[in-house]
């Protein structure tokens, strides 16, 4: 639906797509400038960091493409447009996600994929079949994990409608963190994204395996392949939270 209306303004769409790609590329320019002064950051070379950067960006970009609109749930409650969605015979969540679907967000995905490809081509890795397969699997599972964060953020807005920005900490903030090697961060922070909000499964653990490095906290190598299961594990409670939020909205009203 929204795809059509945005494509209608073709020039403006092209500009928006490029802009979306440039905005996310800016971070990589920052990393590139850092590497004009150094050879390794936290023990990782530029192509290795590029692999982290690209996979985190592509996963976040895909999740944002699908569910980025969920940050408007609070606004929809305030302006009453959530009510108009509730009288239609289609699940509210599907309507929230599809309304104002912005294809320009594809820019971030494409840019992330490009940097991933560049990184993958330049890292010193023997690309065995399992490693080649792990890469797209990582991006898809990472998308699902970020999707769970968007979903939980949407549910949170039923409680605090104005607090939509908090989810940026976990989505954009999380992706920013995942762009850099885990060795850069404090132990407690890494522990937090491995065991509490399992963002480390978006790309860190799979990438550490790809690059032939040990997993953090002495975790076995096969934890690199757990991302799809972790995604299901976090999507389920997020979906429950959304349903609970919608139910409480319908019993308390606005």
């Amino acid at each position, binding site marked *: 639906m929204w795809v059509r209306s945005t494509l209608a303004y073709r020039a403006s769409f092209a500009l928006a797509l490029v802009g979306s790609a440039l905005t996310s590329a800016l971070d990589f320019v920052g990393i590139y400038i850092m590497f004009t*002064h150094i050879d390794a950051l936290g023990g990782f070379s530029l192509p290795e960091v590029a692999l982290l950067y690209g996979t985190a960006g592509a996963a976040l970009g895909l999740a944002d493409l699908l569910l980025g609109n969920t940050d408007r749930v609070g606004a929809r409650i305030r302006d009453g447009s959530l009510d108009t969605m509730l009288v239609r015979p289609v699940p509210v969540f599907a309507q929230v996600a599809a309304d104002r679907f912005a294809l320009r967000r594809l820019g971030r995905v494409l840019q992330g994929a490009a940097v991933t490809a560049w990184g993958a081509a330049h890292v010193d890795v023997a690309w065995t079949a399992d490693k080649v397969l792990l890469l797209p699997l990582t991006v898809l599972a990472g998308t699902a994990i970020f999707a769970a964060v968007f979903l939980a953020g949407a549910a949170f807005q039923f409680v605090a409608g104005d607090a939509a920005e908090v989810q940026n900490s976990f989505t954009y903030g999380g992706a920013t963190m995942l762009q850099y090697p885990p060795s850069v961060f404090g132990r407690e922070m890494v522990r937090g994204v491995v065991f509490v909000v399992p963002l480390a499964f978006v790309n860190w653990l799979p990438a550490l395996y790809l690059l032939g490095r040990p997993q953090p906290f002495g975790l076995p190598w096969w934890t690199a392949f757990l991302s799809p299961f972790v995604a299901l594990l976090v999507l389920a409670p997020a979906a429950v939270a959304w349903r609970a939020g919608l139910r409480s909205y319908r019993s308390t009203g606005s």
Partner: protein
Amino acid sequence: MAGGDAVRLYAAVAAGGFRRYATYGTATAAGVFTNTVFGFIVAYTYIALWDERPHLGGYDQAQALTFVWISQSLLAAGALIGGGFQEEMQERIRTGDIAVDLYRPADLQLWWLAADLGRAAFQLLARGVPPTIAGALWFDLALPADPLRWVLFLVSVWLGLVVGFALRYLVGLCAFWLLDGSGVNMMSLLVSMFCSGVLLPLNVFPGAFGEVVRMLPWSSMLQVPIDVLLGEGSGAGGAGAALAFQAAWAVLLLAAGRVLQAAATRKVVVQGG
């Protein structure tokens, strides 16, 4: 309008801008939380970078970390990664409501400037102070003890806000000529993020490229105020030069805004809005 009345008018407009944002309590708290989270993430990457290259760009590690936290604190006030007034102004231009503003017995540019400074004052307090405190508690920052340095810093921040306003006012006025302002807004935002120091401190930018970026007006919005606070550019003389640099850009860009505004007004009069 008499001078005193004018001052009172724009003070009232600024107070209105302040209050308007002060009503969003939860949103402000959410913003503080996000700024603090980002502060932690960026701080650790800078620690890694300065571990690798101590004294990069002339900063020691404490100064680099101070840069991180002060920039997180200035993001909202300076509308450095989005926000601010220009989209609202463009919407008024698009709908034609701007004609009403133009016939008001107040100056359009000063009106928006006052409102934007009011907003910035609120966000400087509410979104600026808490992340700085969080950063200072967790990390070793190079915050000066000399009150004069803080005064100079606040003057520099204020000048930076005026420069930022003047730039965004020019962008906003483009809506008189362009149907869809979103493209210009995006490019303006990208340039601002890159050239102000949001992305990386400008003194880390390499070679002649860095030299050029540091001379552009965007550096007034973040890099210069933080350098004034850190005492970079050698003492009071350095600070004086920094403030003069900002003031020069502010005057130049505000004047450019007036020229563009006059052209826009002529266009409205000719086309009848």
